[in-house]
């Protein structure tokens, strides 16, 4: 695009007796925080007009290179168009004062014959664009989900030796197993075991009587197994 402008300017100079006329440039400030044409080329004596139509952020034009001095008014957006006439050939840099690291512009002013100045050096690596266009599909935010499966409690067995009873069981996932013992209908002891797979609780010093063990397993998500029971007697 730039080459086209550079070629067009001398062509215009040949075709017309007054080369400056009609070759003024217009640059638009955008809310994406860039100028629509970051670089324009004109001939000496022509002017550049900056417009800010439709913007909702404040923008202005501030001279950045040492060879000129200019600052346009910063008012509530959208600001009115502003222009500057460049009479001396050279390279003029400017920025928007509010967005000085992204709204960077350059005006290259050729002499009256349209002879182009030497091309500017490429920007340093740190100023070259590198858009991050990686996206995440919306359905990828959760794989799996809540654990709603109840644990299963099986293989209940009671082994009694004298006044001691060992109640064993098997759960199919990590669970907290609660064993409640009641004697003649009255709760006498509660014991817990954390296990995945086989587990047991042992109760000692049991008084004589008829016992009922109520066993339930609760997994890490709080789901409870079916309640199982087992009965035994202590003489």
């Amino acid at each position, binding site marked *: 695009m730039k080459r086209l402008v550079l070629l067009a300017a001398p062509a215009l100079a040949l075709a017309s007796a007054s080369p400056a006329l009609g070759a003024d440039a217009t640059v638009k400030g955008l809310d994406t*925080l860039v100028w629509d044409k970051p670089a324009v080329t004109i001939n000496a004596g022509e002017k550049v007009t900056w417009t800010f139509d439709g913007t909702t952020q404040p923008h202005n034009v501030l001279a950045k290179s040492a060879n000129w001095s200019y600052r346009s008014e910063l008012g509530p957006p959208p600001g009115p168009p502003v222009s500057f006439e460049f009479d001396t050939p050279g390279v003029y840099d400017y920025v928007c004062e509010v967005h000085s690291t992204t709204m960077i512009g350059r005006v290259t002013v050729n002499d009256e014959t349209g002879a182009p100045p030497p091309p500017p050096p490429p920007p340093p690596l740190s100023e070259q664009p590198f858009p991050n266009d990686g996206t995440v599909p919306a359905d990828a935010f*959760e*794989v799996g*989900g809540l654990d709603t*499966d109840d644990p299963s409690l099986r293989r209940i067995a009671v082994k009694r030796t004298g006044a001691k009873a060992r109640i064993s069981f098997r759960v199919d996932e990590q669970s907290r197993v609660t064993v409640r013992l009641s004697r003649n209908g009255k709760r006498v002891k509660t014991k817990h075991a954390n296990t995945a797979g086989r587990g047991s609780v042992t109760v000692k010093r049991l008084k004589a009587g008829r016992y009922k063990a109520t066993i339930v397993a609760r997994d*890490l998500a709080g789901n409870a197994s079916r309640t199982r029971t087992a009965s035994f007697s202590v003489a």
Partner: protein
Amino acid sequence: MVKQTNTLSFDSNVHLHGGYVPAEFVGHPLDVIPPGASFEYRYPNDQDGAYLWYHDHAHGRTARTLYYGLVGTYVLQDDREEELGLPVGEYDVPLVIQDHAFNKDGSFRYAENVDVGFFGDTILVNGAIAPRMAVERRKYRFRILNASNARGYRLVLGGGREMIQVASDGGLLEKPVRRKEIPIFPAERVEVVIDFGKFTPGTQLVLRNEGGEASTTAVMRFDVGRGGGAEQFRVPKRLRRLPELPEPNATRRLDLALQSSSTVQWQINGLGFDPARVDIRPRLGSSEIWQFTNPSNRVHPMHLHGMLFRIRERSTGVVHKADRGWKDTVAVQPGERVEVQPWFGPYAGRYVFHCHNLEHGDKAMMLQLEVVE
């Protein structure tokens, strides 16, 4: 006591954000350490347990120094937290969320924007891009800090899973608050308990930012493993009782606006920061009502140094339950009026309050107050 040596080529200092710190050690923007020199900061740590953080606060340069990495967390614990039995050790995890942009060579890329502040295209958590964390099937405490220059986040877990917020800037809330979406603006902290025990092993939950662009949506991922064990912790119904504040002595209106006619500057009540001027002079131990009024179209996270405040009222609706604890930063939304009640103490001296959209604070949305005895 923390001895800070400035090995940089320019002035810097350390501000302990959220800490009750005497004025000489709080990191006033003009109390700077010259290059090569050292300074001994003395922190009393005499306050309730809270998730504090520290960063450079030399005036006019904070946006850049934080962006380039001068940020650290400072976890203050207390007996009350221990009593409650909140998850500790490897189950108590600080998460620092920031947004950055990168150059082709991998270096940080910074673009100054005094109006909206810096917005990057990549989210980092504790310095890592899109990290994954293997978690056990149990409860974790996450301390989340938004250390971004200007970006606010709306955090959502997986497909909208519950997080229980237990603390904010100044420590524990009175009661836990169950939330599915948590907004967090620059410099704010939220502490949540997440129960991974509810999920099947192998579940992957992405902590995501609802308000983000395509590349700033995913924050990090939790991979639920098999372990879990015998954890019996439940979040208590009451966490602590917050003290009553003294009756306010005055009401001040503080207008937040961009001044752009002669130079670009964010201002409070038409004033930019002037270290030679004291704007508010409250008495030690007293309190006032400050009405932050934001007619601009930007969010202003207003932060008070060395002291804490409570949010009393918002023109946009009721104050969220999770915002009723001690705060040191409040995000004033565009068009909103937020009424806060600071408590001026426990130390006298010169402090500042400012906008923690760092580009705003640097230019020069900051006023000075002197707490007098």
